[in-house]
């Protein structure tokens, strides 16, 4: 069941009608049942996995709180992390490692008969395992108390707005909202409705209309002029943003309607001027997770430049690998790691300070353009099906740009048409540093944005689009 389907619309209307009339405990039970139904609608067989993960981490949390024995606490933490990582490793990475090991031994002349399991990837597994791991680590660190109520904990893990594609929630933020009675303010209702509408616009109008354009450029075996490759990469950059930010906005909006606040996951990420800022604006819940549970425990920026750079690189590789079991994702992680390291070395130079990071308009424009294109290079690596395709496309951009070969009707015009409204709102959000700026605009402008969002989605939206990209991660 995806957010942009009629199935979800009816599901949510029924759940919401009941939610508004039930008392607090009843609401929590309803959310749990609805969330399990939501997950089972994709594939009921994996519901057991979700319940098992919930049971293991709930029990580990409770046991961690009861004991002060350090060894026993470490053992419990290890048990929880081991369970979750085993799930991830089996369902997400088993074939990747088996295939690569097979290739390595093959190159050494040893033909090993590895078992390759064609396992299905349970939707959302990367999200909910990270959610439960963060909970157990926080309890281990004594940053939060373990929750006693198994229903509250199960709702925290399975809460349907975030279950299959995030944001990756923190227990410290969500559990209290589940545990205590909630009030729904009119402001939350209005903000929630706008976030849902805007999220649908980002998915149906932007992402699903750009998908065929990007797909055509990334189709293996096609050779395009560099200008068209570049436009195709731009299309993918906005497609993946519209798709993922759209999902996150719908999730936040739906949740707000129920009086539960979720983390902001995107803050106009294409209007930043540095890689550091990009990761503070793109998939915020993943980057902060990696920072808090991986980068800082690794040593963070303590211990000198070399160690900091090493930690950054390892963290970003893990971030890449989180997206999927493929070398292009690893390469994408390396690319962003290197970008962050390079930025740390160059940010204090006079040139960077003056021309890229300075307060002038030209520095803003230059810095933004440079970072946007660096991000696009990252997306080219991310989206390419193979190293060969990556090489061919990069060669086209560098050595065969051929601006006269631009595909006007096939690429440029649709790209401008489907991104312009998003960029305008994006720019407005960046200028006011507020992702809900539209809600605060003067009434005439605000209603104009609402009406335009409605018309653009209804008249030009692609209602036969695909699932959300991040479902596969």
């Amino acid at each position, binding site marked *: 069941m995806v957010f942009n389907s009629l199935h979800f619309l009816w599901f949510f209307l029924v759940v919401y009608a009941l939610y508004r009339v039930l008392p607090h405990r009843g609401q929590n039970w309803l959310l749990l049942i609805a969330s399990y139904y939501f997950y089972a609608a994709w594939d009921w067989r994996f519901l057991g996995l979700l319940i098992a993960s919930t049971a293991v981490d709930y029990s580990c949390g409770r046991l961690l709180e009861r004991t002060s024995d350090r060894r026993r606490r470490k053992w419990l933490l290890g048990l929880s992390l081991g369970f979750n990582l085993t799930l991830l490793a089996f369902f997400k990475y088993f074939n990747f490692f088996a295939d690569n090991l097979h290739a390595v031994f093959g190159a050494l002349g040893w033909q090993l008969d590895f078992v390759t399991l064609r396992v299905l990837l349970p939707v959302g597994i990367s999200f909910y395992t990270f959610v439960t791991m963060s909970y157990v680590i926080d309890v281990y660190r004594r940053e939060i108390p373990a929750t006693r109520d198994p229903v509250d904990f199960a709702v925290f893990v399975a809460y349907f707005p975030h279950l299959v594609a995030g944001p990756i929630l923190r227990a410290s933020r969500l559990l209290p909202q589940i545990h205590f009675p909630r009030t729904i303010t009119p402001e939350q209702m209005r903000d929630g409705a706008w976030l849902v509408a805007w999220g649908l616009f980002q998915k149906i109008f932007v992402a699903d209309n750009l998908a065929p354009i990007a797909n055509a450029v990334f189709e293996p075996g096609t050779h395009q002029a560099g200008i068209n490759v570049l436009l195709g990469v731009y299309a993918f950059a906005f497609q993946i943003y519209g798709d993922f930010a759209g999902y996150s906005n719908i999730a936040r909006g739906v949740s707000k309607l129920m009086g539960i606040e979720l983390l902001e996951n995107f803050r106009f990420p294409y209007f930043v001027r540095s890689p550091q800022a990009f990761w503070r604006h793109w998939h915020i819940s993943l980057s902060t997770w990696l920072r808090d549970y991986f980068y800082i425990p690794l040593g963070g920026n303590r211990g000198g430049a070399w160690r900091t750079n090493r930690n950054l690189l390892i963290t970003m590789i893990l971030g890449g690998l989180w997206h999927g079991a493929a070398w292009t994702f690893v390469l994408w992680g390396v690319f962003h790691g290197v970008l962050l390291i390079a930025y740390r070395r160059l940010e204090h130079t006079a040139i960077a300070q003056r021309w890229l990071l300075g307060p002038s308009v030209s520095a803003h424009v230059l810095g933004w353009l440079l970072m946007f294109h660096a991000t696009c290079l990252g997306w080219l690596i991310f989206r390419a099906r193979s190293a060969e395709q990556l090489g061919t496309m990069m060669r086209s951009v560098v050595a065969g740009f051929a601006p006269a070969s631009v595909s006007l009707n096939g690429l440029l015009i649709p790209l401008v048409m489907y991104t312009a409204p998003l960029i305008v709102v994006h720019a407005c959000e960046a200028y006011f540093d507020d992702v809900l700026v539209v809600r605060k605009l003067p009434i005439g402008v605000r209603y104009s944005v609402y009406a335009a969002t409605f*018309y653009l989605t209804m*008249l030009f939206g692609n209602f036969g689009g695909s699932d959300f990209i991040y479902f596969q991660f």
Partner: protein
Amino acid sequence: MSAPRSADAGAAVSRRARHAAIFAVILAAQFGLFETALRFWGHSEAAPAFQGLFDGDAAAGYRLKPNARVRFATSEFDTQIHINADGVRDDQPIGAKAPNERRILLLGDSLVLSVQVPFERTFGELLERRLNARGSAYRYRVINAGVQGYGPVEELLFFRSIAARFQPDLVLTTVFVGNDAEEAVRSAPRLLGDARPATSAAAESMTTRLRRIVRRSMVLQLLRLRVVSATERFSGTLAAPEPPLQSYAANPAPRIAEGLEVTRQCLREIDSLARTNGARTAIALMPARFQIDDADYGRLKEAVASAGGELQRDAASQRFAAALAPLSLPQVDLLPTLRQALPGPDLFFQETVHLTPRGHEVVAAALEAFIDEQHLLSPQPAQPRR
């Protein structure tokens, strides 16, 4: 305390009303903007220029507007369409019939009207030229009385109220096997005319009026498509959705048989009226594009299968042929001829399901052969009037 509270409530209501009014004005203004933009850039039958071709009609619901002149352009074609004073697509008025003139009246839908090609390249006009090129003592006139969206019921009503006056010697009814059965069922209540219940007539008049309003606006047309698609998807979530193209289904819905029966009744009535005027009637069965185009067929077959149905490529042609056989009217199925014309340049346009100029040539040749074979223009033997 209560006075200020009610004043607050009143202020809140008036604020909401003001906001609703502002939003309504903005919605209306943007409606105008999108409508203008779509009319300027969009190519669609919803464009007002195209809609200018039609006018209301008491019997058939609508008809072609006499003396309308419209240019219709899409990425595949750019056509000037002239409707003559008699309300059919022609450069010249029909006028009085000369003693040596033989007239063929073509009844049908958009596949006969053929707004996609210039008038001189429509199969009716090509047929006329072919017949006149033989150097016979007669002058042949083929009258294109096709109207976009018509089915057998509207064709009968149009013939009865208008086209019978054109004094045809041959009425050639082109049945589009793809949707004529469905359209016949939908329009069957029109056959009752004044005998229809008042509520049914009023509801239909309201629906027609609404349709006309929607047809005139490109924004409303697009919104209607969204609503239709959502309704179909919703009904699909409640019950097993009906696979599309029921006329070709292995197990068609009961309404298809009903539609075939209505079609038979309409053609019998047309034949009866034609005979009264000394004319003969013949039937041409026009296939759908996918019956000729393999790629199109493959795509549709998959779509129907995914909706739980089974598409039988020639079922509709066979069903119409069988259903109309009891009328004992000369009948030609254009499917074999169109198939024989492959391979070669396209017979149908890609973005519409209508004939290309080459498709028209093939059909004109097939109709000429059919007319000769059945001696449809030779003097009719005296027959008792029914």
